[in-house]
């Protein structure tokens, strides 16, 4: 399995045209920990998340400045191999988005296009990743079925398996449970906890209870600023900043 990485920004700014989405954010995301970002809509948490695999580059008019490091490497400097970066920094989205392919092909897709495995070795990668997301026992004999026929929870597990198949060291998750029912949410949360011992995981969530349940550390963002970041238990029981206090107690707005 891949080695874990830490994430770091120094003076990060993200603009969309004239809109200043992320304002001078300096943060360190600890290795092999699960870190959540919370905050109201439009506060910049997804923009910060997407800065770590340069997904913001795909948004027209987006400008990024400041330092962003993955595993100690500055990813906004010239010469950065974007494809290699996105292999190291996997991403899971709000809605499960499996390819319209079989279960096997979904997981094999990444290793195949990156030529990191083939033949029996590829079978092993698929098996290892499906075991990691607890789908192997159910789907081992049904790997050729269409991924689109799976339940929403299994689709999301499959998407996580697909991200793991290219051996990332970091997983970025943008509201990974928001389209799942409570039972599926709990099981995906457990999977995230399990994976956090091997991967650096950064999650954006609107669900404060989810952040409280699963995260080692939590950051609160407001109007593009990272207001406060610290151990989750501290942030929810004794926030340092009045703005965090107002948000976690439901006094924001």
């Amino acid at each position, binding site marked *: 399995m891949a080695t874990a990485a830490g994430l770091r920004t120094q003076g990060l700014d993200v603009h969309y045209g004239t809109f200043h989405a992320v304002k001078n954010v300096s943060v360190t995301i600890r290795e092999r920990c699960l870190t959540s970002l919370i905050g109201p809509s439009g506060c910049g948490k997804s923009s910060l998340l997407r800065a770590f695999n340069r997904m913001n580059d795909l948004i027209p008019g987006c400008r990024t400045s400041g330092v962003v490091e993955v595993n100690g490497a500055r990813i906004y400097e010239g010469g950065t191999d974007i494809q290699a970066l996105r292999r190291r920094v996997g991403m899971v989205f709000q809605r499960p988005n499996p390819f319209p392919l079989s279960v096997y092909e979904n997981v094999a897709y990444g290793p195949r296009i990156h030529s990191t495995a083939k033949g029996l070795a590829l079978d092993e990668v698929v098996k290892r990743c499906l075991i990691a997301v607890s789908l192997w026992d159910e789907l081992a004999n049904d790997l050729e079925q269409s991924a689109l026929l799976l339940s929403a929870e299994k689709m999301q597990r499959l998407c996580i398996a697909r991200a793991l198949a290219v051996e990332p060291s970091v997983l970025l998750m943008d509201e990974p449970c928001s389209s799942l029912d409570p039972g599926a949410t709990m099981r995906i949360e457990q999977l995230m906890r399990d994976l956090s011992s091997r991967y650096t995981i950064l999650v954006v969530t609107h669900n*404060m*209870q989810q952040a*409280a349940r699963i995260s080692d550390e939590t950051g609160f963002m407001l109007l593009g600023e990272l207001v406060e970041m610290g151990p989750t238990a501290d942030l*929810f*029981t*004794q*926030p340092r900043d009045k703005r*965090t*206090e*107002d948000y*976690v*107690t*439901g*006094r*924001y*707005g």
Partner: protein
Amino acid sequence: MTTLRKHIDAHFDEELFRVKERLAIMGRLVELQVRAAIAAFLQRDAKRAAAVVEGDREVNQLERDIDEHCVRTLALRQPAGSDLRFVAATLKIVTDLERIGDLAVSTARQSRSRDDVSLQTFHRLSELAETALTTLRTSLDCFLQGDAARARTVIAADGQMAKEVAYLTADLGAEMTREPALVANGLAALMVAKHIERMFAHATNIAEMTIYTTSAQDVRHIT
């Protein structure tokens, strides 16, 4: 004093207000119970002592009500920050108030252990009880108003009660030594003094919980 903004959901503010309202009622009831218990002891008034025992049911019922409110708030609101600290502190404070109520009952029951003869030191029990009750009232007001600065003054005066009880214990001992016939009454007074000392300790716990709720600072067991 801490002034918090209102919650986005006004019902949550109302729920917390209702908890505060019940706590204030419970505090007032416990205060009346203690006052009645001391009077029952000093006047050897069996009827009043029985009323204190009976009144404890209401104290216990309030404890159950407030507990239930808090547990419901934890389950349904999943409070965080100062709201979580308020609910956690309330769960402790109701226990302190209920214990003071129990000590009032024990004090009232001591009226059966004494005879008609008064000791010279008896009047000091009233004074000690007033100190404990003033502390209780101040602590609870501080908690309900989020006044950490005033709560700190309560905690600062913490050692005084122990000294007063020690003086009283010594004087009671001297009285009993001089007049062995007073031993039964003296021992009953000693028990009451110890109950009052415990009441005072529970009252200062409430002041400590005020600081925890308003400042997220745990000042228990520091001195």
